[in-house]
């Protein structure tokens, strides 16, 4: 199989991740952060090591700023619903995933207002200006994707953060598509909330995510429950990370996530990003030479794009094209990718698109094999119809 659905979740996972998950089930089989016996404490230590690794990786002030979540969507919900109240206004971008778009719409029904700032691919000045224009006197938060999960379009988040702080507005980022690939410097750029998927560019298992913030104590909690601390109190503890971590943790997943972060650190996020971009450019050039292929974005470069690309086969529904590729052993994702706003932006809301995303493990042979499969699909599609 040629797996190019890494934007959904990376596959394969590194051997070190698979080993860490299996080892955790044996060595850290007790509930972390609850009991005082040795295996429980050992499990807590392992979770703390992952917290520390994540804090270092994203330049967070400390490991206590890292709260583990089920996925990036949970982390986004914790921020939006924990911060925004009726009468507040939030600025989002026109490229958001439903992880952002749906909770914002749910909040809008309760009196929260929002504005979609337009993104101008390749023109960061205009994009930042669009965010500036969207700010109002009651803007309580700017929250946007770091990179579109459909088109790879990268937002100038460091500049948007500077803008937000100019107006004393906190900024949150959806890093689902960027963590582990694009640089994310919490301390250096002044990001207030980082929402991270553990199972994509960080190569952890599915069911892992993180909310990284020094401001967790100020968030209203979406979920309350047992934390293993201050158990006699009816109120959720104020301290991080337990404020945002109710219930038993995904111990094997977190152990795997730590191994994933170490894998990315060892290989180097910049090396991975360059590798993936080179492959995507190879794919882009191959696709652009084929009649009947519709491309929507310019040839990707890391300055303006994360290594994700979507296209269509003219006259063929995206789902049919993806099925045709699957029949040839190529795994890609078609449809709307849970991001209708991003498709509306590009005019593909009706058709969807076929998305391609390489990983650290994708090879040139995979890219060429994908292009051959697309050529066969085109030939088949251009043949006589029944």
């Amino acid at each position, binding site marked *: 199989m040629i797996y190019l659905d890494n934007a959904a979740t990376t596959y394969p996972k590194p051997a070190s991740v698979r080993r860490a998950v299996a080892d955790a089930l044996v060595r850290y089989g007790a509930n972390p952060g*609850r*009991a*005082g016996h040795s295996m429980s*404490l050992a499990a*807590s*230590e392992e979770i*703390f090591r992952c917290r520390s690794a994540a804090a270092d990786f994203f330049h967070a002030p*400390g*490991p*206590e700023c890292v709260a583990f979540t089920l996925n990036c969507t949970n982390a986004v919900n914790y921020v939006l619903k924990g911060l925004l109240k009726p009468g507040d206004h939030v600025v989002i971008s026109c490229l958001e995933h439903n992880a952002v778009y749906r909770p914002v719409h749910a909040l809008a029904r309760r009196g929260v207002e929002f504005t979609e700032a337009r993104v101008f691919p390749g023109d960061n000045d205009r994009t930042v200006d669009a965010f500036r224009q969207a700010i109002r006197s009651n803007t309580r938060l700017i929250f946007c994707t770091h990179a579109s999960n459909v088109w790879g379009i990268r937002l100038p988040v460091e500049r948007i953060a500077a803008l937000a702080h100019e107006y004393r507005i906190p900024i949150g980022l959806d890093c689902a598509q960027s963590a582990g690939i694009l640089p994310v410097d919490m301390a250096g750029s002044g990001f207030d909330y980082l929402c991270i998927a553990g199972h994509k560019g960080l190569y952890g298992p599915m069911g892992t995510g993180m909310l990284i913030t020094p401001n967790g104590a100020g968030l209203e909690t979406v979920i309350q429950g047992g934390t*293993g*601390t*201050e*158990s*006699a*109190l009816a109120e959720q503890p104020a*301290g991080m990370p337990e404020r945002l971590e109710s219930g038993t943790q995904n111990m094997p997943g977190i152990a795997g996530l730590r191994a994933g972060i170490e894998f990315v650190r060892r290989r180097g996020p910049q090396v991975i990003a360059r590798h993936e971009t080179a492959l995507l450019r190879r794919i882009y050039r191959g696709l652009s030479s084929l009649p009947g292929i519709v491309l929507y974005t310019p040839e990707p470069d890391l300055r303006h794009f994360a290594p994700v690309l979507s296209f269509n086969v003219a006259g063929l529904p995206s789902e049919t094209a993806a099925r045709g590729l699957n029949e040839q052993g190529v795994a890609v994702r078609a449809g709307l990718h849970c991001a209708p706003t991003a498709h509306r932006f590009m005019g593909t809301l009706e058709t969807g698109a076929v998305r391609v995303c390489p990983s650290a493990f994708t090879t040139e042979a995979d890219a060429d094999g994908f292009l051959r499969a697309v050529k066969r699909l085109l030939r088949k599609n251009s043949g006589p119809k029944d």
Partner: protein
Amino acid sequence: MKGRNLLEKRGIQCSVERIPRSAENHGCGYGIYVPGDPDAAERVLRLAGIPLLGREERGVGR
């Protein structure tokens, strides 16, 4: 564990362990056991901005 790591880096022997429930700590919590000089440990933790919820002597109570 952040506090424990900090103390160990400063050469102060310590370990994380469960602490008995009391009116002050509301129970189900963890503490750092410092067999040597707890005053020095407390200074290190306070200087690092790590909040101290209380201090107890092992086996004696508060």
